């Protein structure tokens, strides 16, 4: 595991200029890998400039580790080339599938929590890690449906895969909250089931509550129950690199930095309490 990077944000094009002009107090930034798998132009221009000033991590949305299609080696080559260009602290993607038969549905679709799926995903992650020459992080996704054929809980599924593939975990605390709400599970029990030694990064985000269910929209501030869950996560896992994802209704950078500072203060408080105890 890499030491904690501190507190970061997802890099969004809306903030390129503010980041370069104001050099805001961010410890690091996370990029969406696919947005920079382009030949040239502004995206890579800004990326290189920002890389000169901040540590970066790469977060993918289309490795489709859970798909029963073969891995897309051409895509992986591009990921590897981008990694050698910007030397990210780490590379992550999601524990999900995004399509089969060559189709990309551009969504993070849930897997059934079965031994069959574990075997499959572990084999895929092994190939990816071998090809990239590094451990990757896998992230838990928000889900709206559960499969009848599941044989275990989501956290058991995630933990078993991480252990067997010897990969790290990007724990999305908001996704834990969303999925637990949607499937009537206890999010704190979820945290209990995660191996603290594998949690390299935490995601926080806002969502939209529809009453019966929650949709993971990343379009609003983090809500209090998610902050509470985050505090518990820090209590259990210690200092973990934390960032906020915002993908719609993107506000001024300063607003997000304030929100990030709230995460910082929660983390500081929990770590202090932990050290006293």
């Amino acid at each position, binding site marked *: 595991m890499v030491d904690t990077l501190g507190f970061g944000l997802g890099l969004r094009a809306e903030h390129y200029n503010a980041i370069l002009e104001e050099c805001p107090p961010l410890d690091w930034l996370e990029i969406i890998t*696919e947005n920079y798998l382009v*030949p*040239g132009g502004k995206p890579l221009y800004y990326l290189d400039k920002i890389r000169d000033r901040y540590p970066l991590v790469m977060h993918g949305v289309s490795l489709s580790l859970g798909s029963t299609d073969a891995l897309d080696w051409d895509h992986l080559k591009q990921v590897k080339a981008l990694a050698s260009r910007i030397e990210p602290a780490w590379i992550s993607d999601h524990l999900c599938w995004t*399509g089969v038969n060559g189709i990309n549905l*551009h*969504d993070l679709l849930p897997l059934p929590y*079965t031994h069959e799926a574990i075997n499959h995903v572990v084999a895929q992650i092994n190939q990816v890690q071998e090809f990239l020459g590094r451990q990757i992080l896998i992230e838990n996704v928000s889900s709206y*449906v559960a499969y009848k054929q599941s044989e275990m809980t989501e956290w058991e599924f995630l933990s078993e895969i991480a252990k067997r593939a010897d990969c790290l975990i990007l724990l999305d605390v908001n996704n834990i909250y969303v999925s637990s709400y949607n499937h009537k599970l206890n999010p704190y029990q979820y945290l209990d089931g995660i191996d603290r030694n594998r949690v390299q990064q935490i995601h926080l985000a806002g969502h939209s509550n529809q009453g019966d269910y929650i949709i993971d929209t990343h379009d609003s501030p983090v809500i209090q129950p998610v902050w509470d869950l985050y505090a518990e996560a820090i209590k259990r896992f210690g200092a973990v690199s934390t960032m906020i994802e915002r993908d719609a209704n993107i506000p001024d950078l300063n607003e997000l930095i304030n929100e990030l500072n709230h995460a910082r203060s929660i983390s500081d408080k929990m770590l202090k309490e932990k050290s006293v105890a």
Partner: protein
Amino acid sequence: MLDLRQLQINFQDFLLEKKSVIENEIVENRLSIYHQAYYLRLQEALQQDFKVLTQMLGRDEFNQFTRNFIVKYPSHFRSIRWYGKKLSEFMGENSLPEYLIEMAEFEWLLTESFDAADSVTMTIEDIALIPAQRWSELTFAVHPSLRRMACHWNTIPVWLSYQEEDFSLESQRNISTCIVWRSQYEVQFCALTVDESYMLEMMINGNNFGEICAALCKYIDVNEVATHAAANLKKFISFDLLIRVDIK
């Protein structure tokens, strides 16, 4: 129990509105969330790439039309950035008006140029150093972001007026060659004159300056052709269209 592959095929078929029995595999049926999100996400990406086309069609009609596109052409791209590639082709298959298809083609070229490969560009000084007697042997390389398009409508003026939120300019027939390219990371576009377009095409095809001048005689008086071609060349250089000059 369905195996993982069959489960995924069924789930995908459901999103693609094919016959599917995925419902039987699900505990709480909230599949409609995935279904709605699938179409919405791709439609939003297309709206971003085809902003003026969206306005010309009206958002409702654009969404109706792109929904059919999404059903017919599922994405095979890793990044949603490329998804609109076939939209103008699909418009043609569905006999949409030519001026709308041309707008779609133009807006797609803007996206292509935006993140095409980078290159240093050549300057006037690069050719100033070349002795006059060797000019006829010069060949040129164009910027990787350069795209050309034969326009049959006043697509660029309409696109520009939409940027000003002026929706009154009607589409009219107007034949020209348009180019789209990037200069200093900003996408540029313009219409070329007939001789400029011809000259640029010859440059792309690897013809040397002498051959270009000879060919331009069909548009320009033979006594003025060299001066005229040199002026075009300077214009292309000042536009950042050229990246290299070679002497062959």
